[in-house]
């Protein structure tokens, strides 16, 4: 059983949300719909840090490590001196490591977003659920 409130303005919506939370409704029982990001709502609902950060961090570190290791190990696999450069040259490999850090970090952040927000939500895609232009509060009861 859920109770639903619909608002047209951000202000009214935030007002009601605050009222509900202060009135003792647990944030986890509240679901919202918003037509654009509302940062204050996140604060009122006191949400956990997003897992996207962790995904990005792990992805970025893995990318940087891959960048340095892959370049160094392949260079050492068959030593081929070129242009009087050291076999394992840190400055040039930094470029590759940086690019891979961004690549892996960005892609894994996107993956984290999909995981964290339970997307793609196949049921919504198929159904007629819509992303409406109004602020809604759904309160789960019982």
């Amino acid at each position, binding site marked *: 059983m859920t*109770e639903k409130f*619909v*608002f*047209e*303005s951000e202000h*009214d919506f935030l*007002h*009601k949300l605050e009222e509900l939370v202060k009135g003792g409704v647990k944030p986890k029982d509240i*679901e*919202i*719909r*918003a*037509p*654009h*990001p*509302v*940062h204050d*709502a996140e604060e009122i*609902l006191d*949400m956990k840090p*997003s*897992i*996207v*950060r962790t995904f*990005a961090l792990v992805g*970025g570190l893995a990318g940087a490590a891959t960048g340095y290791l892959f370049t160094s190990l*392949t260079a050492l*696999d*068959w030593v081929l001196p070129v242009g009087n*450069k050291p076999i394992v040259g840190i400055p040039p*490999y930094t*470029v*590759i490591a*940086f*690019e*891979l850090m*961004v*690549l892996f*970090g*960005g892609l894994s*952040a996107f993956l*984290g*977003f*999909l995981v*964290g*927000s*339970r*997307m*793609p*939500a196949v*049921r*919504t*895609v*198929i159904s007629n*659920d*819509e*992303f*409406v*232009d*109004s602020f809604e509060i759904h309160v789960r009861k019982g």
Partner: protein
Amino acid sequence: MTHKTAPVPAAAGHPASEARLQIERDVISAMQKPGLAYWALVGFCAMVFVVCLLGAWAWQIYKGIGVGGQQNPVGWGIYIVNFVFWVGIAHSGTLISAVLFLFRSKFRASFNRAAEAMTVIAVMCAGMYPLIHLGRAWYFFWLLPYPNQRLLWTNFKSPLEWDVFAVSTYLTISVVFFYVGLIPDFAIVKRYTKGFSRHVYSALSLGWVGSKRQWRNYNMLYALLAGFAAPLVLSVHSVVSWDFAMGLVPGWHTTIFAPYFVAGAIFSGCAMVLTLCIPMRKIQKLERVMPIDHFEKLAKTMLFTSMIVGYAYIVEFLLAYYSGNVYEFGIFADRATGHYKYQYWGMVFCNMIVPLPLFIKRLRRSLAYLFITSIFVNIGMWLERFVIIITSLSKEFVPYAWGTYRPQPVEISITIGTFAFFFMMFLLFAKFLPVVAITEKKEEVH
């Protein structure tokens, strides 16, 4: 308070709600079925693309790379010029979407979608050129590090190999960034469409409804992608500049190249955003969502980067003089007075002189003036790459080996072909995707 306990859709009436719906309608109506003239334009671009680019490229493959003008000593002709030019054009998209996001600039919301689309398309254009330049394009996979029978790996110390990583990372991240921004907008477009296209937009929106969890993760993802993309945009054009600066060719081997190229890239990118958005605003009737104020800010950004580019021109020249090295100074003096002096002075005029009147507020706010300036800047930045690449190679070390270069019909045709491809893709974008970020525009409504 206007809350209702029944699941009734919000009725229009509240001014904020009305303003938000107006934004939706303005942007969605730009996506209405294109008229015949529009399709004719797309068709024309497609035809030019097929004939000029694919046709000329096929001819080049059939006859060999020698049909172009690239010869000793100038082994890098306008294919490489175009490569650098298009990568540069791509940069303002990331600047506007990522860097301005981090600086919390409001005016980005008018342009970020168009600029991101432009980035993706421009990187595609840029990506074609190394393949065209290779001659035997089907061997391009030799650039990629993959396990092979010869037990050989690519040379990761080569700047050309860095390019492979930089440009492909850039393309991937730009596409992800572009798509992520589009997810909530796809969900809005879904509401306005019927039948088959409704299913397509619905699938593309991945089931977005704007729940707390979705927005929470979305905001975090967007900020992180901006954080990744901002240094990426610096690195990509730096890597492109290092294709030159790592060599010992006089005029190329100079430390200022990386920041100078990045500034130039953003400069040319801003110009291209203006070139595309000014007509688009008019044709698609987007006056309400793309206010003049925002164009003025973009013009300021362009002026600022123009000054940085000017700084680099001046510093390079003065330090060549400072060094007291006749060879170092010779190459710069030759640029200004030698075989390619018209290109050089054209570059100085377009990039340093033409943007200067933008210090006047009235001119910054005149779209016609901005449009003309942006065309000059586009030409100027193309010439800049021409001057850097061609003049340096044509007079390398041994005077006996000096020579000149003139682009041949095949090369010119391919160049025209990419412009056609670029405009074709942009025209398609403008009709099939929302050209302004709707949810971000809604955020400005209070």
